[in-house]
């Protein structure tokens, strides 16, 4: 890997439930992105988008529909399914291959035109053994949560506190979907979904388009004074059968170790300045923090209690409000990149963390109880 890849601009859609159709929403966000650095569509080297057919308003082969709206007309472009961090990584690869100077990454999901998320996630299950059991992302997460609480003595209140913290952070993020001050009691008394999960511990269904412009090192320095650099990544899939997996010790620990090694990070709990973690279920932020090495095993609850992960703590986690506040399913990984970028370039506005940020972590997950995990490390 010779050259470095830098992020030179980021654009996000707002509000979280948009009136525009998907084509307009994609057009406006990509246009805003290119205008920020004065780049014409013709100058963009390649485009990688992220969208899934099942989260795509009843249209199959997602990128066929929004191709020209994302600037793809007569361009060498491609698409990643399921997770927009895949698209981010593929765009980095396209630049590092030496074939392209710049790459635009666009992630989109219009949750308001889709069925309920779990109507879709139940279709992840194999059709013969698991699907008839009613397994979906939420019921799988409930199993994981119960195990997590019992094994490490994590309390319901600690899990609910994640929602309180993240929705509170979202109050300061103009791009967030659910923005409100709530109490632990309100979270625990919200509608039971799959015991022990209540409605407010589960992520909503949001609309969202995010676009990120990447450039090779020399080009990045020409386009902006403060590029954010891609420093490390890793990703892994777990086995598909839930019963074959250790839900408290999945792939995330090894993914994190590999990403830190690539980025030259030795002690993540002191070297990572801010983390944007995908927590579609509140307790997962605690579990993922442990597996990301931000605290000791079983210490997720204490980490939260200490206030370290608060907006102005020593290691803020999800200052944007996270996935609990905004869940444009496929786009949520690239939202983490976008939010890490705002923090690194001190452009997060009211939710800018109260410390100097040199290193940020972006994480995404999909599948039952974290079957797929991806971690990206960014730095200034």
């Amino acid at each position, binding site marked *: *890997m*010779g050259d470095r890849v830098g992020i030179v601009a980021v654009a996000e859609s707002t509000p979280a439930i948009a009136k525009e159709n998907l084509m307009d929403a994609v057009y406006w966000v990509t246009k805003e992105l290119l205008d920020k650095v004065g780049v014409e569509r013709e100058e963009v080297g390649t485009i990688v988008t992220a969208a*899934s*057919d*099942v989260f795509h*308003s*009843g*249209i*199959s*082969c*997602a*990128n*066929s*529909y*929004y*191709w*020209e709206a994302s600037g*793809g*007309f*007569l*361009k*060498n*472009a*491609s*698409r*990643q*399914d*399921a*997770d927009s961090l*895949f698209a981010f990584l*593929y765009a*980095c*690869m*396209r630049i*590092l*291959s*030496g*074939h392209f100077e710049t790459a635009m990454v666009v992630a989109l999901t219009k949750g308001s035109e889709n069925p309920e998320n779990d109507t*879709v996630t139940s*279709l*992840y*299950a*194999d*059709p*013969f053994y698991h699907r008839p059991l009613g397994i979906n992302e939420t019921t799988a997460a409930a199993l994981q949560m119960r195990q997590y609480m019992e094994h490490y003595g994590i309390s319901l209140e600690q899990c609910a506190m994640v929602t309180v913290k993240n929705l509170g952070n979202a109050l300061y993020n103009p791009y967030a979907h659910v923005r409100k001050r709530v109490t632990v009691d309100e979270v625990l008394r919200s509608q039971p979904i799959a015991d022990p999960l209540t409605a407010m511990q589960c992520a909503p269904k949001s609309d969202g388009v995010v676009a990120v412009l990447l450039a090779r090192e020399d080009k990045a320095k020409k386009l902006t004074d403060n590029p954010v650099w891609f420093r490390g990544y*890793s*990703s*892994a*899939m*777990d*086995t*598909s*059968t839930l019963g074959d997996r250790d839900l408290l010790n999945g*792939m995330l620990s*090894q993914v994190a170790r590999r990403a830190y090694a690539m980025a030259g990070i030795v002690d993540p709990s002191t070297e990572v300045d801010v983390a944007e973690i995908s927590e579609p279920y509140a307790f997962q932020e605690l579990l993922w923090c442990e597996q990301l090495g931000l605290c000791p095993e079983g210490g997720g609850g204490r980490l939260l209690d200490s206030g370290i992960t608060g907006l102005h703590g020593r290691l803020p986690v999800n200052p944007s409000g996270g996935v609990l506040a905004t869940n444009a399913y496929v786009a949520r990984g690239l939202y983490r990149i976008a939010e890490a970028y705002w923090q690194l370039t001190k452009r997060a506005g009211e939710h800018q963390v109260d410390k100097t940020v040199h290193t940020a972590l972006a994480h995404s997950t*999909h*599948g*039952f109880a974290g*079957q*797929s995990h991806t971690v990206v490390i960014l730095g200034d």
Partner: protein
Amino acid sequence: MGRSVAIMGTGQTQHGKRFDVSYPELVKEAVQRALADAGLSPEDIDGVVAGTMPSMMEGVALNHLYLADAMQVVGKPLLKTETCGSTGMSVAHTAFYWVASGMADVVLAVGYEKMYEGDSQATMTTVADPWIQRSFVAGAPGIFAMQSNMWIDRYHIPEDRLREAAAVISQRNHDDAFDNPFAHIKVRVSLDEIMNARIITYPIRRWDVCPNSDGACAVIFMSESRAQQMGRPAAWIKGVGYRGDESYLGDSDKVRWNTAIDAAKEVYQQAGIINPRRELDVAEVYNPFTFMEMLLYECFGFCDFGEAYDLVLQGTFSRGGDLPCDPSGGVLCTNPIGATGLIRVAEAAMQVTGKAGTHQIDGARLALAHAMGGVSQFNGLMILGSDR
């Protein structure tokens, strides 16, 4: 540009109606064959690229989750590339860029489809937007018939001779499939039967159309240093090109089809090809419809516009001709869509490494592989060669 990348192993399933295996078993069959062909074990793979058609095809969403074990990707990074019909080619491109970037040395590309689990034409109709195009787009034949008719009209192609040329293409592919152990449809048909078969969508008749197939394909991509350590013939990637059109059919010219023309220019430029018909030894053109195969010859510069039918009748694109096309029997005889583009790449790699068996083109050293997709939107190509 970038690091050189080679294909060091390919694996295909027995394509066809595979009610004997589950979806994961089908995928595993191709993956195991690719690993065996390359002499590798799963631990040697750094990452996996997977691709398929929309979830509606088999009724499993984000099916890399379901097929993770079959693809040997547990504990490893995965990318999931999907671009409709051109998915298989885009999967190959992703594996290429991944290795060329230096972020991995050995990447396994897997494309798969189990089309007898669902209704492929119903699925493909949902590719069109629900408001304007969907109500009149009748699956793939409707779109490609329209494109073929525009082409016939533009160049005043004589219909009787074109009909005969399409029959020659159909018969050639069906005959060639007998030499491909993995091919699905193996039927002898006469020119007369082909020309008088029932009409599907004018001008497309029964034998001008590809089948539905169950099938998977796996291909192993390697960095230059790792490939050279293997000490065996490699298929080197000489060019990678891709272009996409707008989603509305009427918004762009589908005869002088810019996505096909520009994607071909991109690969020829990278591979240093000036006269493709003379320089290429074999081409695996994505040919789900006979008439489209001829239109693509013209877009790829194998001949001038309006000329293909005449050259087909002269045998230019048959075995023994200037540029043999689809000696595997092509998409016309085997079409597990998510795998189909990758099968073109695998077949091209087999040709330039002398591993194509009874459908080997003697002395093939430079090959073209192609796939298309979307609502007549996407074209992706790859050039493979025996020499780095």
